């Protein structure tokens, strides 16, 4: 062990090959997977590519002895529900792992309830348990602003915040924290918690999807479950999106996923009720427009 250390010290690196590092680390694969598996999100993808280049260059500079401080990697993802924050966080964890900034690359997703306790003395151990589980990977705190409840001065959330801030500062090599939530609430949260603001280096905004993007997402989702639309059902889906988007509790891609889950249910019912003899794969995977048009949304109702 000791010898290895000495060898490393005596081996002076004078050159790095960024392109080689890029390929060898598998970062290239993740970025192209990000491009292909996620529809739209252009600004997010651009930001992630920029961040990846920065981190790759930073690692190279570290090898040449040009930096010795590890960079702050904590991030905030802001955007409406269903815009892909959790999905991207998962990819980000993998990316940081490939770049060598976290040792394991797993993602631990929590909300206020996982961090904050019910009584005095309950919060600190709870928060620490979560932090320890996330070490070596990424801690994703969804709707992070609920940790801060200024209207109740005895709220235990403050205790969790203090421990989080401490670990985010002192254990920068051990874990990366991503805070996520609605943009306006996140902005307000950062305004009243300068400790978080100063510890977060990367803010990424997730825009809402356009109707076309939502339709494309629907197609990707359907295909990934081995179903397919035809002309009519695709048209029905497009109309569904148009109406559903104007209704309350619309949650971007998540609403699409839910709509598809319900369409599959109706499809299954239809297939079962109409089948008399043997049926093939194509029949079992076809989503007809009736499967979508039977949704309450088309008759003035509301889908969750």
């Amino acid at each position, binding site marked *: *062990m000791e010898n290895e250390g000495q060898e490393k010290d005596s081996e002076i690196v004078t050159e790095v090959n960024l392109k080689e590092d890029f390929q060898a680390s598998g970062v290239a694969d993740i970025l192209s997977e990000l491009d292909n598996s996620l529809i739209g999100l252009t600004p997010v993808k651009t930001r992630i590519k920029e961040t990846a280049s920065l981190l790759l260059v930073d690692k190279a500079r570290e090898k040449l002895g040009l930096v010795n401080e590890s960079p702050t990697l904590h991030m905030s993802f802001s955007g409406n529900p269903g815009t892909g924050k959790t999905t991207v966080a998962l990819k980000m964890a993998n990316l940081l792992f490939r770049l060598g900034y976290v040792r*394991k690359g797993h993602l631990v997703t929590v909300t206020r309830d996982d961090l904050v306790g019910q009584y005095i003395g309950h919060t600190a151990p709870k928060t620490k348990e979560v*932090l*320890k589980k996330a*070490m070596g*990977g990424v801690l994703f705190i969804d709707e992070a602003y609920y940790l801060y409840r200024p209207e109740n001065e005895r709220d235990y959330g403050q205790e969790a915040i203090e421990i989080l801030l401490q*670990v985010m500062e002192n254990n920068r090599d*051990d874990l990366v924290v991503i805070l996520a939530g609605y943009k306006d609430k996140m902005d307000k949260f950062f305004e009243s918690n300068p400790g978080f603001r100063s510890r977060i280096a990367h803010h990424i905004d997730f825009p809402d999807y356009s109707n076309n993007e939502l339709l494309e997402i629907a197609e990707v989702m359907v295909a990934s479950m081995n179903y397919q639309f035809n002309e009519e059902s695709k048209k029905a889906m497009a109309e569904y999106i148009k109406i559903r988007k104007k209704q309350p509790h619309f949650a971007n891609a998540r609403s699409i996923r839910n709509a598809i889950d319900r369409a599959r249910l109706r499809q299954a019912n239809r297939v079962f009720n109409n089948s008399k003899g043997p049926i093939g794969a194509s029949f079992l995977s076809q989503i007809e427009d009736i499967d979508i048009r039977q949704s309450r949304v088309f008759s003035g109702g509301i889908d969750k």
Partner: protein
Amino acid sequence: MRVTQGTFSFLPDFTDQQIHEQVQYCIDNGWAVSIEYTDDPHPRNTYWEMWGHPMFDNPDAAAVVYELNECRKIYGSYYIRIIAFDSSPGWESIRLSFIVNRPSEEPGFKLSRTEVKGRNIQYSITPYSSDNPQGSRYK
């Protein structure tokens, strides 16, 4: 007198980085890692105080090093050891145990000889530090 117990006992004390690597080895083997402390270094004192619970579901050793440093904040003048338990035989058995923290001064052990029947001699050892009550043995 430097107390030696457990694995690696004749090596110099580990750095946190080296502790991290040993603990990671334990975790990667599926062993549960625990932190214990005591101010009674008698070799027959096998039951040390537990610092929290054994850790089962932390994939990275940083979690253990973090807790070790929390423990040091309070029991920095005590002996602290790391223990790895393997449950694969069907019960928890200790695979590895090593000291990761020790008092800055270790006064050692008093050896006493008692002459018993037939001019036989019985030996026993007592840590000098245990003259003081628990909690006030090391600074």
